[in-house]
């Protein structure tokens, strides 16, 4: 294998010197081959297998063989109230986390963008939650959220406020999970904004200052537009992350109470591993992969437009 690829690289280089640029593709593919192989094996092949599995139904425990049901599993998923609730929860969760995360991340970045000893300390403080694994953070918040005896209720009690049942009240539980996720993510996305802020043209900011723009106007009309590509990028990364990690839900509520904190990925897990319905799980997986793809394509286009506008 390694011998073959070296010789083909040699060959490609030789051809290039001979001045036949078409052979260049070979080199390109040779260089791509390792990652392409692994992508195919571990990403595309499983997707294809899941797609095929989503067309079959193997009724659990009845001894019947897998039967081709076409889009039957998709119909079953879409008509399942638990799926619809998980999808709705996921939407509320995504928007509920994304908006405050972006505002906080930008706020943190603006606060610590200048390098001083103090802001270095602040950066570390803001970034710290991202270093904590999600499972560990969730275990920590289990004790923070404990009704009556938890840290949160303890301090609220000092203010004379009696906290609600943070994770046990079906109207509040999802917002508690959102709070934890914002705490966890804001510091990480701050890094992107700090990098983005370095690229905001200084002369534009200075020109605005000379024109008499105050701090809010500078932020609104100069800095924010210049940060548009960063915001678009952070939005995509964040949305994908919000659809693909449910560790904290598993640790804190397992989707409860009454499915109030159930998210798509955990719904898929339940279908496959608790209910033995692999066809349904595969269909739900493909639906969420489709959502992910739509988000990625949509925002890639927005980003490209933003980048072009910038140039």
């Amino acid at each position, binding site marked *: 294998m390694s011998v073959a690829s070296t010789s083909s690289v040699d060959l490609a280089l030789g051809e290039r010197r001979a001045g036949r640029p078409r052979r260049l593709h070979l080199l390109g593919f040779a260089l791509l081959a390792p990652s392409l192989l692994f992508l195919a094996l571990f990403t595309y092949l499983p997707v294809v297998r899941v797609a095929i599995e989503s067309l079959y139904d193997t009724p659990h425990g*009845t001894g019947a063989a897998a039967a081709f049901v076409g889009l039957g599993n998709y119909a079953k998923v879409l008509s399942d109230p638990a799926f619809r609730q998980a999808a709705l929860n996921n939407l509320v969760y995504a928007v509920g986390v994304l908006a405050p995360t972006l505002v906080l991340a930008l706020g943190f970045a603006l606060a610590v963008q200048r390098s001083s000893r103090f802001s270095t300390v602040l950066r570390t403080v803001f970034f710290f939650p991202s270093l904590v694994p999600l499972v560990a953070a969730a275990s920590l918040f289990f004790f923070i959220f404990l*009704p009556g005896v938890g840290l949160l209720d303890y301090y609220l009690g000092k203010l004379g406020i009696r906290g*609600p049942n943070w994770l*046990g009240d*079906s109207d509040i539980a999802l917002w508690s999970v959102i709070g934890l996720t914002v705490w966890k993510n804001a510091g990480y996305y701050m890094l992107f904004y700090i990098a983005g802020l370095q690229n905001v043209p200084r002369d534009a900011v200075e020109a605005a200052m000379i024109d008499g723009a105050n701090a809010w106007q500078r932020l609104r009309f100069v800095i924010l537009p210049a940060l548009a590509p960063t915001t678009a990028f952070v939005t995509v990364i964040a949305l994908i992350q919000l659809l693909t990690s449910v560790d904290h839900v598993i640790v804190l509520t*397992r989707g409860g109470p*009454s499915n109030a904190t159930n998210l798509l990925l955990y719904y898929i897990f*339940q279908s496959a591993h608790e*209910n033995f319905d692999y066809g349904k799980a595969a269909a739900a997986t493909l639906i969420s992969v489709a959502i992910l793809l739509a988000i990625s394509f949509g925002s890639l286009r927005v980003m490209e437009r933003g980048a072009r506008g910038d140039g």
Partner: protein
Amino acid sequence: MNIVARVGATALALSLIAAGPVWAQTRIEFFFPVPVEGKLAREMTRLVKLYNDSQKEVEVTAAYTGSYDDTKLKAQAAAKAGKPPSVVLMSANFLVDLKLSGDIISLAPELKADGTTREEFLKDFWPALHANATVDGELYGVPFQNSTPLLYYNVDQFKEVGLDPNKPPRTWFELVDAAKKLTKDDRYGFLMAEGYDYLGWLMETFTLSNGGRYYNEDYGGEVYYDQPSTLGAARFVEDLVFKHKVMPQGVTEAGGVSTAFFAGKASMVLLSTGTLSFIRENMKQAYNVAFVPMNVRNAVPIGGASLVMFAGQSEESKKAGWKFIKWLTTPQTLGGWSRFTGYFAPRRSSYDMPEMKEFLAKNPDAKVALDQLPYAKPWFATYQTVAVRKALEDEIQAMLNGKKKAADAVKDAQKKADELMRPYVEQTSLKVP
């Protein structure tokens, strides 16, 4: 070249010598969960080493596989990948589903090879354990660690409000009376674990002590959620929150319940006997334990785990696995594990041993848990156990949040459960000539 060949030959010879005894051994894998604490994993590893050192034929590799749910997942994943573990310590209410999915094998051939029968083999085990070890009349699991719910109460707080700590509530009416007296501004008289899994178990507890059956122990396609016994249990729980106001609104997870008990914020809690060691080590105030209060009769469900064998292993591996299971479930081993963990030993003869009698004399709380055993009943297990259990849990959680009344909750739960079990029911009891 010559040197290389000579070195190679020596290495081969050496490896042959080293491998010699291994050839005669059967290597098997054993997956086990530890639901409570890390020190149980160390104790299990010690037991396995003890077994490996005690004989030459079987070499067991023990793998700690996380929670009960994780263990089921990992064992199934390994089996799907063509490398099934030989023996797994599996949550006892997964046995029906795992038998139906073809993941675990009947132990009837092993019993036959030993010249015994299921009835004979299970005779020494507590009667309540037989149903969860059996699927469709055949043995599929050997009980290893078991528990029942237990009422824990704070002795100091009982004295504080003028209740006699030597007379814990025996009925639901006494429970409500005591809980009302014990409830103060930031203290609840009663608290129970209401997260998924635990809630279903405790709802079964109340239904059984309300005279009900909760589910059909002999057939995986029936539950009795909308029957008076379950409805009464649900109404009782609803009233504890909304009428008597002795229990907080919303859902409290098991970890929240034990923490509130330790902090003195809950005077009586309903938790597993498996938590006994944990409570004993962490409770600073005086506490005691009592039977689960009853309404119609004394009855509690069993919980815990059994040893099962996975499908897809060789005959040799099966034999080795069975040998290991038998060693793990001797009265001695089970007794030792019970004293270490707080679970009760599934074999009655474990309690005839002197070290067990001594232990019970020293720990009267463990004695109460044992005395409750004769009233124990099998643990909920149906077709699609988890989903059918969750059907009721979701509704009860909605009720605890004030979104539903008990009567609607049990009716909707029954409807959902029937829907889930329909494919199985149609293939079995409704398939008639």
